[in-house]
């Protein structure tokens, strides 16, 4: 297989396969969760479920002071790389073109050097997170194989993207193909691991907020 064939494969059949698994996985899992249903609450509602739920979806993005102080490391590094993920995925011009092709809409991009800087910071944050996880006794005890897998599939697109952008060591078609392949790996793994939180966080936060809203208390 020549490198161009490799690139054609990841852009063609590979992308199709990964997309099918990703979409199917995400939809089935969300449908399952929604259809689980909830027991009818017989208590009288003291407030609105919806508004409290929606508010919580946003407010939970800010950690409360006590929680933050307890694990400042995880929070800071975690924040940085989540922000990095957001910026690199959604504001790098070639990525926006991909979204435009798939979902038909596009938006302005950030200059490449800015995205590059976010990538570097995110890579460092991810490494810090891994080091912290491995050096902290309690964290290491709690860590499963899945956690390492999830870390790896998140890290790979960053590092391959960085190398491809700077065209280090290998030739461009191979580098770009490896980057696309790493993203395909990520989206294939996503629905079946805790990475699913990228979708379910909305549901779980809403649910938490809704319970409080129903009871008329602040979430």
């Amino acid at each position, binding site marked *: 297989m*020549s*490198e*161009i*064939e490799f*690139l*054609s494969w990841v*852009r*063609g*059949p590979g*992308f*199709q396969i990964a*997309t*099918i698994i990703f*979409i*199917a*996985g*995400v*939809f*089935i*899992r*969300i*449908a*399952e969760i*929604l*259809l*689980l*249903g909830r027991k009818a609450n017989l208590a009288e509602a003291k407030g609105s479920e919806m508004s409290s739920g929606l508010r919580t979806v946003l407010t939970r993005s800010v950690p409360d002071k006590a929680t933050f102080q307890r694990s400042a490391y995880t929070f800071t590094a975690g924040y940085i790389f989540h922000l990095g993920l957001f910026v690199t995925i959604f504001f790098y*011009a*070639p*990525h926006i*073109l*991909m979204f*435009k*092709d*798939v*979902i*038909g809409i596009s938006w302005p*991009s*950030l*200059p*490449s*050097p800015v*995205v590059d800087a976010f990538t570097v910071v995110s890579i460092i944050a991810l490494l810090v997170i891994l080091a912290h996880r491995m050096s902290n006794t309690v964290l290491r005890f709690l860590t499963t194989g899945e956690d390492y897998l999830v870390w790896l599939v998140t890290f790979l697109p960053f590092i391959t993207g960085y190398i491809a952008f700077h*065209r280090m060591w290998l*030739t*461009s*078609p191979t580098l*770009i193909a490896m980057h696309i392949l790493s993203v395909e790996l990520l989206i294939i793994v996503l629905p079946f691991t805790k990475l699913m939180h990228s979708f379910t966080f909305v549901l779980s936060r809403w649910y938490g907020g809704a319970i409080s809203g129903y009871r008329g208390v602040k979430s």
Partner: protein
Amino acid sequence: MNNNEDKTLEEMTRDEKTHDERTLGETLRSQGISRRSFLKFCAATASMMAMSPAMIPKIARALEQARRPSVIWLSFQECTGCTESLTRSHAATIENLIFNTISLDYHHTLQAASGTAAEAAREAAMKENFGKYLLIVDGSIPLDNPGYSTIAGISNVDMLMETAAGAAAIIAVGTCASYGGIPHANPNPTGAVSVTDIIKDKPIINVPGCPPIPVVITGVLTQFLTFGSLPELDDIGRPMAFYGKSIHDRCYRRPFYDKGLFAETFDDEGAKKGWCLYKLGCKGPTTYNACATTKWNNGTSFPIESGHPCLGCSEPDFWDGGGFYKSISMPTENITKTVIYTAAGAAAAGVAIGAINRSRKNKAVASHSKTGIDDLSK
């Protein structure tokens, strides 16, 4: 010493030699090429092929002494664009003369003879120069049915095998001969393959491009004539000297790419300002060719300079990259349909699985028995 006498003597000897026995230097001189412009050509060739300037006199000496090599040119499933590219230079360049200096013993577009006479010329050249001639091929070879493309009743694959047997080396000119090219594009109706797919036991140099740049051919010929050796090749058989860098690496619009300034359409402000053509489908980042430096039409410009994205014509399967105006980061196939169908299917499956889960839950609830005081006393 009488210089004049010497010269006359030299000229006399030269005239006595038959056309074919003349060295390249002699031929060039007889065509009125001055030594100065010949050396200039050698210098340009050396720099083009990334050789040190110290090599220039060596190249010059070797080239002057070189005998005209016999060249057989086979055209299979092709459009003659490659031949056009090599022969339609607007001015008589030295590159061109070098090309004219080879003994092109068979080329069914360029030769005067046709039919049996042409085939006889090929056979004679093969016999006379067995093991020494250069074979140039353009066009792909159909394997599905030999009748798809024949010359004088001989199928392409048979002619290639027969002619390759006595070749010192093969140059596959154009993307079709190098990688199958357009005939090989999906769904490849003729079962077209490249020269390397068929010939395994000869040195093969791929000079892809649709069409390839003329000086690349003369560059390879020069090296072959000068050193009797073949240039260093990359992993898909292309001379490194020409295909070692990508279009993107040498593109003058690169600073715009780096800054993230792109033309969105062919006539917007960005296009007028000469911004990067990535969004218009430019394949420069994944295409290895010399266009950005050697340029086309006697060094006038190259496609990106006239505002058109690179098509990636020197790469295998460039025709199947999902469209010339689709950028590299886009999937090649229509993914929107896949997304919609999968989502619909998966939603249905999710509902079904949800229903099963529910009935399981209900069953569990129904079969649930409470532990009473009696159970505890058991």
